[in-house]
């Protein structure tokens, strides 16, 4: 990979708007990026890295924040893609950290340690499986099933048609069902 980069202080450096402007952008959008990255990466440490990475990229690549268009949407999607990349680049599963998660209390009807453990194990597998998908399919799958967006919203965000979203999601689900059967030894459909 070839890359040319100018160290901050020369061009581009901090955006012309200055750090205070950028801070407003950070305050407005960081939580959405961080939460999405946390769900994809499975732990807060990696999510924090993703958050830092996408804002650094924005700082580095944007002379003018207004040129980005919908900054929130840009950061959100950049965060999702960076998190998927991060999971893909892991040599091995770094494990799910429950330290920074809200878990149901023992009195909570949702408290079922066995089910929580199973979902957690399956979730870890899914994170890895999604990272192996084509980037577009991975992003659509994350937006639909991890983030809860409807197909029309995803189509708007990704500038494509609803039909494309529906077909891609259907094929992705079918592939993941086959993969999960191979991975966990489930019965055939």
């Amino acid at each position, binding site marked *: 990979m070839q890359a*040319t980069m100018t160290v901050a202080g020369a061009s581009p450096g901090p955006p012309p708007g200055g750090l205070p402007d950028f801070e407003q952008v950070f305050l407005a959008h960081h939580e959405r990026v961080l939460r999405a990255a946390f769900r994809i990466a499975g732990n807060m440490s990696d999510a924090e890295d993703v958050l830092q990475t996408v804002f650094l990229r924005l700082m580095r690549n944007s002379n003018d924040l207004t040129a980005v268009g919908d900054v929130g949407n840009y950061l959100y999607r950049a965060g999702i893609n960076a998190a998927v990349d991060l999971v893909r680049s892991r040599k091995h599963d770094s494990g799910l950290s429950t330290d920074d998660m809200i878990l149901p209390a023992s009195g909570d009807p949702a408290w079922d340690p066995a089910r929580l453990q199973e*979902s957690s194990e399956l979730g870890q597998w899914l994170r890895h499986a999604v990272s192996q998908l084509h980037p577009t399919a991975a992003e659509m799958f994350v937006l639909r099933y991890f983030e809860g967006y409807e197909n029309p919203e995803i189509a708007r965000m990704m500038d494509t048609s609803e039909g494309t979203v529906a077909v891609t999601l259907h094929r992705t689900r079918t592939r993941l069902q*086959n993969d999960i059967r191979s991975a966990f030894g489930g019965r055939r459909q």
Partner: protein
Amino acid sequence: MKLSDRNPETMLNRAIEGVSGAQPDPAAVREAARRAWSRIAEGSRFGEQDTGSVHGCAGFQSLIPDFQNRSLSPARALLVQDHLNECVVCRKFAQARLAPAAVPNVIAMPVRSAAPWRKYAVAAALLVAVGLPSYWAWENLGLSADGPRATVQRLDGVMYRVTSAGLRPVASGEALNEAEIVRTGAGAKAVLRLRDGSTVEVNERAEFSVSARASDTTLRLERGAIIVQAAKRRSGHLYVASSDSRVSVTGTIFSVNRGVAGSRVSVVEGEVRVEQGSETRVLRPGDQTSTHASVGASSLVDEISWSERSNEYLALLREITALTQKLDSVHMPGLRYASRLLDVAPSSTVVFASIPNLGQVLGEAHTVFENQLRQSPVLRAWWQKNPGMSAEIEQAITKIRNISSYLGDEIALALPMRAGFRDDPVIFAEVKREGLRQFLEREVKIANAPFTIWDGVGPLNGGGTIVLLRGGYVAILENPDDLREMVQRFDSPAANPFSATPFGKRLRDAFAQGAGMLLAGDTERLSTMSGVQQEMQSSGFSDARSVIIQQKQVGSEVQHSASISFAGPRRGIASWIARSAPVGSLTYVSPEAQVAVSAVVKNPAEMFDDVLRVTGSEFLKELKEAETQLGLRVRDDIASALGGDATFALDGALLPVPSWKFIVEVTNPSLLQRSLERVAAEMTREAVKQGGKGVEVVSQTEDGQTWHTFRSLDVNRMPEMHYVFHSGYLVAGPSRSVVQKALQTRNSRTYLTRSQHFLDLLPRDRDTNFSALVYQNAGGTISALMRAGSMGNAAGADDLAQALKPMVITAYGGADSLEFSSKANTLHLAMQMLLPAMVHGTSPERVAYRK
């Protein structure tokens, strides 16, 4: 996972639920955002001072050494970090540079070897632990007494109990009960006294609870900083546990700082064990560690600066560091290459143990300690803080030093055999200077102990334990019937027939190779006594003549080894383990494996013959019937198709299906595959007879690799097995992904035996290969599963993780011997196994004598 849930759609929905339902803690989100912004803003500010461009990957790669040394400016470091996140080539370049390094240390202070007097204390503790198993059981199984767990001694600011009804203020002097959650407010500081006398300084915004179990006390720190001054304890431990680590201590001063990113532990005085997952680190004064790489180093001064006693702690730290350095110069006794005590051991000895005389080491260490104590008022004040305990320790050290000064470099214990039964033990040593009799008489008189001191001349007057002093030796024994022989041995060691026995010769050979602590048993005669000789005849283990277990220090490492000697060439099952050789099947196991068992074995067809020799004729008849039905011969169609090495491993997730792997060398894959298909066909025929569908072997070729699946056609009757033939091995697992991972591990050459973690666990010995290996690193995984399955039993999970420390045991097959080696403390285990044999083999005559 329940089998009824194995519908792929259901499983995928559950997986989505597992991901989409993961809600981060708002506090963690805030902290992460704060840190990220802090770095971004810092990078931006520093960036204004930097100039120059970085051109392409070559430019970034030239910066990586400085980036890894942390000598880049923050702006450049951020740019390099960002590029590494994006560029696989540069990331690999950076990882390759880091490969030889282990997990980064927070502070590069090497863990020093334990001071000699500590090692002695550990050895003593080991013996006590072996001798008092019932006490151990009480300690570990007993319940803790009722009553408060801690008292608030001093409070500056506010402190709350966290209850379901909200926060309730705590006042100075109030008691804290079992597992009550307590929180200090902003700007608050508190000092607690635990029920064992330990004091805990608590900084602002900390949250914790205190609980007790048997004689152990656990302070669970959810967040914040504390400094613990642990009291000296006679039993049990004080633990400081957080969600990512556990610190165990017995009398020391240390701080724990638990934040969102992880925990940092710093030690002022004493020794602290930090357990994180299955790893344990030992910290000594001045050492510091953290549980996550994102928790950077901090000076110990900063770490305890909030304490009102920080100056006192730092002065103590300086003095203890100086003392430790001086104690490190005191060396443990070297290995012993001969033993004069073998010449005087009872001729019928069936168990022989030997330990070095540590009196001189203890004496040197004590002298160093006293000198340092005289020179340092700070150290003196610390030592005299608990005068009762200090006096007891000094008294014990003085007594051991005094008696050791009369003895030679070795102390032995022998267990003789009398009339076919084991006799009482005899402890004996050489006497190297005059005055022992007077010394013992004085001590016996002072302690009013039931000892009779006798020189073998004249009548034996008195009862109790006998101390025989004669001919330059001393022996302690219980049975007067043994006295006559001991007197003979001491008078004429050269005439002792024990040295000429096979057991005596093997002991002499063991000493010739250097001995530290040694425990040996004459298995030939011990097995005669236990009546198992006949049962072991056909297995080949009845040929075993002796077992020798040793612990010795080689360089800075402690090695544990055991060897079994046979009367002649190994035969039967005892000969299954072949001579050491490379184990190819182990290259399919990844460094993340929890358990791996590997062996190079002799010809599997011959092993099958050995099994037939051990089993009865009934089994042979059933086998022939089965072979007729199957239309194959197990020996010729299965065993003959297999090669000489195999591995079983648990390597990956344990839920919902354990990720087991079985890898075996195959010399004739097509024969083996045909045999497996025949077995499947016969299983199907039998199943159909009973109304079932049977099993199928499905073969599918993808990318040049043929995948085989052995599965039941009846729902939920039998788990699937997926396997391939790869590079002369059959690689099997419960799912294709597990087998795929095994192949990837092999192809990428990232297998277990190349990992630094594994290599660090290997014992240092003369062989580059081994015949068999047991590897275990399951503590962290099992602990995590226990925590997930039983949230309330975190202490039990921690205990299990501590017990299951990572370890490797290697075995080596010789022509007439088997040897085992490990860094793990197998000597302790062996002693626990041999101790009951010593006790239960006591003769009826001995019982009468005791009466």
